[in-house]
């Protein structure tokens, strides 16, 4: 058995393990009743999808809300993460370890521990129940990922290249655009992907800071999951997963520098 073959098999097994839990969700979304001990639903229906895609359910509007918030969070996180990651990756300064610890802290402390206090602070600042507040709240778990990934990229980065460009007369923006960005590009992309998906999956911070008024998809999803509506939950869950998969497909090639490995393995 060749190495390529083993790689392909590992890829298939991994993909199957990731996709298998989604299959019941897909079946549920078309099921009209699916009870033990039936292997498959007795009846099928489009009711769950009709409801999920209707204006009344609010699923599509919360999809756009979730998109806009995750997008805005990613952009702001990148703007903060680039200089911060550069400082941490390139320079040694007193207290660097403490800064690192503080940076990682939000990723280690569960959101439920900080959400009530954060809510009180945001209320005083007039930021609760607004998009701005939710984006700011999402930045707390998002920035560690972005900054640490960029710090790792800058640790491998040699600023001599920038000096060279400057000595040839490049302006700061040109240096960034033509030297820095291409060199840290893949890391920035990974960081952005993490940022987008971490924001995309926030439940508690959105609920508490958004005060229910900023209705993202996880909130809608959970209200049906908690009520035992497996059919509607299945439909919304599939809508919820889709953007993440799309983003992954479009960026996988840039991250690995090649085609998605499974596709490559299947190619002749």
């Amino acid at each position, binding site marked *: 058995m060749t190495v390529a073959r083993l790689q392909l098999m590992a890829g298939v097994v991994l993909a199957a393990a990731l996709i298998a839990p989604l299959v019941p969700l897909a079946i549920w979304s078309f099921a009209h009743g699916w*009870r033990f001990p039936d292997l498959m639903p007795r009846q099928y229906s489009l009711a769950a999808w009709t409801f999920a895609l209707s204006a009344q359910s609010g699923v599509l509007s919360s999809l756009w809300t979730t998109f806009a918030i995750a997008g805005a969070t990613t952009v702001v996180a990148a703007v903060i993460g680039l200089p911060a990651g550069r400082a941490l990756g390139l320079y040694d300064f007193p207290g660097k370890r403490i800064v690192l610890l503080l940076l990682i802290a939000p990723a280690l402390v569960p959101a439920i521990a900080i959400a009530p206090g954060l809510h009180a602070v945001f209320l005083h600042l007039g930021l609760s129940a607004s998009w701005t507040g939710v*984006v700011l709240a999402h930045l707390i778990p998002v920035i560690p990922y972005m900054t640490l990934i960029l710090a790792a990229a800058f640790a491998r980065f040699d600023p001599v290249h920038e000096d060279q460009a400057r000595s040839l007369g490049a302006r700061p923006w040109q240096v960034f655009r033509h030297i820095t960005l291409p060199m840290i590009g893949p890391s920035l992309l990974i960081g952005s992907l993490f940022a987008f998906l971490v924001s995309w999956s926030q439940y508690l911070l959105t609920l508490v800071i958004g005060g229910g008024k900023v209705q993202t998809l996880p909130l809608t999803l959970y209200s049906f999951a908690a009520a035992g509506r497996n059919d509607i939950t299945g439909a919304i869950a599939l809508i919820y997963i889709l953007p993440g998969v799309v983003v992954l497909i479009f960026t996988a090639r840039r991250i690995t520098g090649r085609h998605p490995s499974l596709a490559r393995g299947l190619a002749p």
Partner: protein
Amino acid sequence: MLRSLAALLLLTTAAAADTADGQALKAMTWDQIVEEARGGTVNWFMWGGADNINAYVSGYVADRLKSDYDITLNRVPITDAAEIVNLVLTEKEAGVTDAGTVDLIWINGENFRSMKQADLAFCGYTDLFPNNTLVNWDNPAIANDFGVPVDGCEVPWNTVQFAFAHDSATLVDPPRDMAGLLAWIKANPGRFTYPAPPDFTGSVFVRHVFYHAAGGPDALLGPFDQARFDAVAAKTWAILNEIEPFLWREGRTYPTTVTQLNELFANGEVAFTFNYDPAQFGIAVQAGIYPETVRSYGLADGTIGNTNYTLIPFNSPNKAAAMVLQNLLLSGEAQLEKAKAEVWGAAPAIEIGRTSPQVQAGFAAIEAHPSVVPAAELAKAALPELQADWLTAIEAGWTANVGN
């Protein structure tokens, strides 16, 4: 791109006509309040787990609110009203007294008591409603919410009464009283369970056993009495511990939510589910979750009933719009619409006899879902709800003595 992102970041909820000052509203006539409310928005936080209830609110109610009053209804789905009580409490502690997030909550019981005790409710305005005349405030089941006097702090929306459901295809003749049910549980090991209190539904099941142990609710009504509680509680825990080995999974574990019980019932693992709102059985059959052979019934010794309400928080900035919505929800037409089996099947909180002849005819023409026991039949043996202090004591006692 950058500009639209900046606009997005700056986007905050724009306030229309601010009607946070409840005292000023109370001095107005109804027509003035409606004028104040026109063009505004109302944020209604309500349990969002039933698509047909959501559809009724976002469809029928929102459409009428828009067309009749030009008010936009923003339905905010939540999983637990207690979260929203905490939200309003946090706002109060943070000094947000006139720009709260919540304009209306669907609420009752312990959550109402919490809001009333913490002065989080806007009170004393219901007389202004034209549709207030449809409400029978002399009925103690309407004027008291789990034994706590309503005092004009909330407006009734639905009445419900506890009922059991079984699958008539597998269990033809279920036990019809509590003594019979307890005997049935012991004769059919593994076929019954109930959600662990403080789950709302599990808690009310335990109260039925509590009433049974007390020989009826009469001795339990009124304020909490430790001596009386101790006597009845000891008997109740003995009964529940006696049946525990005969419960699903030998009682080693209990479902934590009624949703889990419903799922066990749907999959045939247990023979009964129960709910405070029998309309839920019809909804579940329509959604295909339960088989069409599911039937529901009350107990001969009675089942507990309650009323659920809508409440305006003290710091709502859109009180006028919320009031217009509450008045609309009380109208004969809106109560009739949600009483229809295909819409929701919810029993009205108003006196049908006080509505217009058309509405009365509409109520008379309603055909109940075959899986939903008619409210009139349940009402033949109705039990009152205990005061909230009893509830918390029973829930804590269950955790210490049965669920340990």
